[in-house]
Each structure stands twice: as C-alpha cells, then as structure tokens.
C-alpha cells in the first residue's frame, strides 16, 4: 500500500475485506502489541506469541463492532491488555508471577503510546532516514551492520543518525523537513 492511510481509513478498508489493508494494519501495530506483551506485562516469549496472535485474531473478528474507526489504537491497547491479563491469570495458577502496580503499568503504556507517535513521524521521513533510525535504535544494530546493509561507510552513520533525528524532530514539531532526502552528506 503506497499511500499513507489514516488509522480510520485503514480500518475502513480492512472492513471492506482488502487484504493489503489488513497487512498494513498488522504491520502498523505489530510493534505496539508486541511491546505491550513483553515490556508492560513481561510475558515470556511463547506466551507473548500466543497473545499476539489472539489479539490480531480478535481485532479481525470484531472490527465491525468498533464504533469509531479512528479509535483503533486505544481499542487495540485495551484488547492487548485484557488478553495479557487473562494469560497472566492463567499462568499464575501454575506459577506465581510478580504483580505490576497499576501506576507502573500505566506509565509504561503511556511511554509506548508516545513511542508510537514518534514512529508515525518516522514513517513520513525518507527511506534512508527511516531505515537508519530504525536499525540503530529499535533493532539495536551497530554502525558497521547498518553500513553494510545500506552500503554506506560505517564512519558516516553517526552523523547521519544525528541529521535524521533532527529531521524527525522537525517532523514531529510540524515544521517542514530539510530538502536533503537521503540523510547523508
């Protein structure tokens, strides 16, 4: 899907049965659901995978009941939280786990929401900037790995990261990004 759709547009297309829209919806929110499962509720990998699949299955089945298409994100967050809690309750019957306080949970969720806002800004940057920032910060790749993958000198990665962060900040603050589309020198 080449055009950046709003969440509401994406949900509408999913409801119309467009498979490409569903792929995009999963792609757009996969990190969010994953992070809630492993960072907020600290589920082990196999439980997190079950939750991940269950959440998207429920989203698909219940998309028609969503009253406000633009509210997909909070709806998805609540669905993921409920599914994680169910999973935790089931697992504590076998093995007690450390309880998270409501304040702690809310604080992490708030940070993830903010992170998702930043990712939306990232999506509007040039391909190179998006790739470099994602590889370095989200995938934790080294300068050398990034340089090899993108065919760029490793010695220029740090400065590119800095420039791309500047563009991201401009984007988030609503200013027009600078004209250099590559993030390079």
């Amino acid at each position, binding site marked *: 899907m080449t055009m950046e759709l709003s969440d509401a547009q994406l949900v509408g297309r999913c409801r119309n*049965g*467009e498979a490409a829209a569903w792929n995009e919806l999963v792609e757009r929110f996969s*990190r969010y659901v*994953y992070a809630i499962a492993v960072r907020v509720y600290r589920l082990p990998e196999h439980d997190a995978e079950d939750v991940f699949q269950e959440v998207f299955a429920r989203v698909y089945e219940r998309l028609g009941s969503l009253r406000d298409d633009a509210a997909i994100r909070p709806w998805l967050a609540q669905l993921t939280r409920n599914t994680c809690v169910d999973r935790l309750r089931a697992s504590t019957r076998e093995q007690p786990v450390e309880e998270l306080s409501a304040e702690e949970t809310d604080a992490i969720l708030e940070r993830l929401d903010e*992170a998702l806002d930043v990712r939306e800004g990232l999506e509007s940057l040039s391909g190179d900037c998006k790739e470099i920032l994602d590889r370095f910060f989200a995938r934790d790749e080294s300068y050398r790995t990034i340089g090899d993958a993108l065919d760029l000198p490793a010695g220029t990665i740090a400065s590119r990261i800095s420039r791309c962060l500047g563009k991201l*900040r401009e984007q988030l603050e609503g200013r027009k990004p600078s004209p250099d589309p590559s993030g390079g020198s």
Partner: protein
Amino acid sequence: MRATSGYDEERLGELLGQLPPAPAGWVQAAQELPAARLGLDAIVERARVDAEFRVLLVADLEAALAAAGYEPTDELIDAVRACLPELDQ
C-alpha cells in the same frame, strides 16, 4: 497524533527504542489470518456485492485474488471456485 514538542535527540532515540520489531514470523502469521480463517467469507461477500469483482473472479480467479491482495494459494483458489456457482444465482 498527539502534540509532540520539545524532544531532544536523546529522548527521540529512547522512544524509538521502545518499539522493537515483533518477530517476523509472528507478523506474517497475523497477516495471513484473513486468508487462513475468514478470508474466504470476505472474498465471497465482496463478490456478492461487487459485480465487477465477481466478473474478474470468473475470468481469472488467481489473478483477481492476487490483485485484491490475497495470496492465491491452491486451497484458497479451490475454496473460492467452489463458491462461484452460488454467486451467479
């Protein structure tokens, strides 16, 4: 998107690091849910209400499914083909 201002580079980097990618296999499995579970229903329903899509399915089933964004697996093609006669009624 909420109002976001006053981010410094360190803060942006920290927030970007909050959302690592989910394992690719998980994402792919979730993306294949419609075809695996409910895709057939969606295709049939769309064919029922969308005459142009129905014509395309009859003319070239595999190409029509691919153009609509579905993976035209043998199983899906067979399942949709089995539903086509009732759609013409």
